[in-house]
């Protein structure tokens, strides 16, 4: 097993990259080498990100957008500078970037704001509102974060939820897309890359159909923004959401990008300080985006940390990150194919596919697979991966998932494959 040669050698100097990540230097389970294959859940952080956050607190911490004093100016500059960096990272303008605490809040923001549109004073605001009989379309492979907020919006507005199915290979079934995304469809929300299957969805095709019926398109980029170059203009969607913690950034920050004119029409979601224009006891008027959507003291240090993460990724090169993970994924799929009784849930080849690889091992429950791997220092995720309906689609309860990032190398994949062999021996499975 260990003597297989990587199917391609990649341009990344992983040893050097790994050295930037303090946590990856530690050992696990009594001194074993740590093989971290759970970046799909959350990524580790390079020192430069931790340093940037700390520098903010030690040098420039003050209330952003509220202080007229020097510290306040410095804090505001740091925060707004971070917005510019993060905007650049996805080809956006900074005024279209809204900071939230995670991607989940970003998606809820859109759903609640559309729900609030029916109470809007303005005609443009009202035009975004949903009526009974309107439709919201998602897919069967969505993370709960991009499913339940829409279920709840349907419940509040009387709109109906419909969804695109998934085929046996783990691709979206687009054969009925024209029926499912019908004339009454107001929102199409789908994931760019599945966190379970690894599938990369055909954005352009879905956008074309959504445009034809004038539906808004929400793209959940949680699993793509960290792993491939993104350009919001090219994507052609209306909203993009992702989380900082999955892309080398801190916990506690998410990003919503929205089209200028749509953000401008949307009513607020969270309300409070810093998102207002004028306030009276009985009513208030609201600031322009992005401030309108950032109520309260912002996630300032986290924005600074995420900007440092974007700088790190940009310095490495997102195309190289993608190529590297692509190579790891191909190599992993080959390795897994060599294990009898192992079935990959999701595409079996690396075409239009990212580095989240889910699988079942015959006669060993995912929890038990995960346990044996963990005992050997190989950290994977087991369970439904917050995509329970997708599990039902495949008639299963749980999978084991390995997911890769720029700091993984071929030896990590070897460790995975070896440990799976060990798990099989342990449970006496052939």
């Amino acid at each position, binding site marked *: 097993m260990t003597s297989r040669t990587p199917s391609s050698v990649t341009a990344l100097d992983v040893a050097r990259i790994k050295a930037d990540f303090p946590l990856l230097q530690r050992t696990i389970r009594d001194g074993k080498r740590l093989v971290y294959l759970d970046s799909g859940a959350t990524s580790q952080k390079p020192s430069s990100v931790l340093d940037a956050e700390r520098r903010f607190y030690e040098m420039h911490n003050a209330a952003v957008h509220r202080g007229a004093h020097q510290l306040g100016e410095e804090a505001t500059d740091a925060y707004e500078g971070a917005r510019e960096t993060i905007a650049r990272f996805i080809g956006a303008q900074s005024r279209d970037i809204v900071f939230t605490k995670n991607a989940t809040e970003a998606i809820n923001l859109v759903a609640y704001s559309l729900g609030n549109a029916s109470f809007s004073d303005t005609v443009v605001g009202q035009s975004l509102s949903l009526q009974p009989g309107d439709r919201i379309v998602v897919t069967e492979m969505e993370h709960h974060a991009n499913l339940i907020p829409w279920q709840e919006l349907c419940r509040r507005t009387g709109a109906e939820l419909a969804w695109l199915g998934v085929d046996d290979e783990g691709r979206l079934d687009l054969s009925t897309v024209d029926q499912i995304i019908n004339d009454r469809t107001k929102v199409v929300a789908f994931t760019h890359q599945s966190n379970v299957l690894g599938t990369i969805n055909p954005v352009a095709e879905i956008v074309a159909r959504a445009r034809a019926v004038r539906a808004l398109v929400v793209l959940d980029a949680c699993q793509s923004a960290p792993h491939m170059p993104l350009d919001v203009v090219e994507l052609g969607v209306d909203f993009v959401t992702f989380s900082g913690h999955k892309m080398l950034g801190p916990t506690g920050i998410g990003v919503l990008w929205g089209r200028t004119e749509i953000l401008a029409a949307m009513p607020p979601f969270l309300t409070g300080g810093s998102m207002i224009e004028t306030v009276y006891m009985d009513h208030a008027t609201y600031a322009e985006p992005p401030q309108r959507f950032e109520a309260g003291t912002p996630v300032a240090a986290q924005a600074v940390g995420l900007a440092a993460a974007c700088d790190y990724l940009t310095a490495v090169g997102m195309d190289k990150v993608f190529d590297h993970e692509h190579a790891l994924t191909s190599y992993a799929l080959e390795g897994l194919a060599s294990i009898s009784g192992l079935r990959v849930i999701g595409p079996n080849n690396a075409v239009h596919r990212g580095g989240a690889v889910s699988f079942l091992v015959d006669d060993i429950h995912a929890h038990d697979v995960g*346990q044996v791997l963990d005992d050997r220092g190989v950290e994977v995720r087991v*369970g439904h991966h917050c995509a329970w309906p997708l599990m039902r689609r495949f008639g299963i309860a749980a999978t084991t998932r390995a997911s890769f990032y720029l700091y993984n190398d071929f030896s990590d994949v070897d460790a995975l494959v070896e440990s799976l062999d060990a798990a099989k021996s*342990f449970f006496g499975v052939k």
Partner: protein
Amino acid sequence: MYQEIILDHYRNPVGRLILEPFDVEVHHVNPTCGDEITLRVKIDDGVVTAIGHQGQGCSISQAATSVMTELLEGRTVQQALDVEAGFLALMQSRGEGQPDEDLLEDAVAFSGVSKYPARVKCALLGWMAFKDAALQAVAQSVKDQS
């Protein structure tokens, strides 16, 4: 963690059947992993005469439910709940518990599981289902008598 006794029960589970007749049926789910159990109990004159369970789960949850079935069948409901309380305490001990072997018998094999917080819920799935079912059965019999 994987004691021989656990693997034995996992391979040859006790009470993995659709119990008929029964007094109470419950369905429990572990939301973090999606594992499920449907458990039925038969209780006669305050004694747990039979437990049957079906569902899907890992070796720990399957074995824990099997050990439980073996251990609790034939006891009074009160005794069974005492054992359950002892097992729960052991599982929450984070590897520090001194298990009462007289009370828990084969279930002491799960001591090691308590060191893995994420697996504690697995070990408890069947036990919590049983507790729920037993309490429902008691409530039902009180109602029937009144």
